């Protein structure tokens, strides 16, 4: 091996991915060449220090909360698409414009729950307009204790401000109707 090859293969040498034969050849050169020995030492030190540095731990409970938010965002996207398909025109359009966001909010809450609970759950691909129209069914299965309303509204706002607006109005109505868990 020559000096050029030492520079080129330094990572393979340091990571230990060389075959014993190549390793011997590499080390043979290092023993006979001061510059390369120096280079290999520096490189090794630098790499070790770079890999040592951990980033600060995020606040407690962060990962769980992140997973919930991602799940909610993804579901809001799915429902938004279905909603867009089912609001083309006609007299029922206005109804869908209210029902879809409301269903989105409710289903999100349900899903946020099931996201953490592998046994339950619902697949986004299994959503049908019947289900969205039939949002009361989803309401019954919903548990409010696992996710906060601001969290969901935040997810919705990022995805679709319009949807979030409708969702908020519907949520307020539900609260006035006595759904205290909200």
């Amino acid at each position, binding site marked *: 091996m020559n000096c050029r090859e030492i*520079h080129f293969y330094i990572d393979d040498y340091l990571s230990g991915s060389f075959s014993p034969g190549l390793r011997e050849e590499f080390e043979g050169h290092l023993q006979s060449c001061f510059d390369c020995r120096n280079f290999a030492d520096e490189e090794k030190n*630098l790499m070790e220090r770079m890999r040592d540095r951990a980033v600060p731990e995020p606040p407690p409970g962060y990962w769980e909360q992140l997973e919930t938010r*991602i799940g909610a965002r*993804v579901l809001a*996207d799915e429902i938004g698409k279905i909603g867009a398909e089912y609001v083309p025109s006609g007299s029922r359009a206005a109804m869908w414009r209210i029902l879809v966001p409301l269903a989105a909010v409710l289903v999100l809450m349900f899903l946020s729950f099931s*996201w953490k609970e592998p046994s339950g759950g619902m697949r986004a*691909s299994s959503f049908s307009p019947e289900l969205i129209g039939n949002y009361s069914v989803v309401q019954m299965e919903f548990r409010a204790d696992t996710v906060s309303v601001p969290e969901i509204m935040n997810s919705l706002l990022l995805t679709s401000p319009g949807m979030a607006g409708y969702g908020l109005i519907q949520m307020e109505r539900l609260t006035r109707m006595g759904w205290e868990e909200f």
Partner: protein
Amino acid sequence: MELRDLVERFIKGDQKAFAELVRRYERKVYSIAYRMLENHLDADEVTQETFVRIYEKRHEIRDTNFFTSLILRIATNYAIDLLRKKQRRFISVDDTDEMLPTVEVEMAALTESPDSALLNEELGAIIEKGIGLLPTRQRVTVILHDVEGFSKTEVAMAMGCPEATVRSNLHIARAKLKKWLAKRLK
């Protein structure tokens, strides 16, 4: 479950597979984003956005390798965009006159303290600062390969360049970092 099975199920729209992939990759993505943006809120935004986007792009994914490099690509591109949006100015490592004041402070601590544990800690901090001053593509390459330990193939796919470019970026970046470190320790 094997990563390959998870990715296959995810491509077909399996929510549980997606949730599991999020759990497996969230720390890596967060860590890359944090190293690029150096604060929790931005790292959080990048992490969340990366997974939402990979979900939207799931139909384009061909295999497991592609999945990993796509995650890396989305995360680093988003982080770079965010950096640009914040109009953060990059100072080249070569511009030593414009050294940040915090580095001066660290230097003072370094020369005053003979304690070797602290020395190691300070060395790490100086290198980190140096990485932060590299030009964007070199910086991303160093973070993905040297710091986070992804392979040259994965990094090349993520950055959309040949492996030779990854090698030369690493070569140049490490030489700069060593120079930077030597200057700081003089």
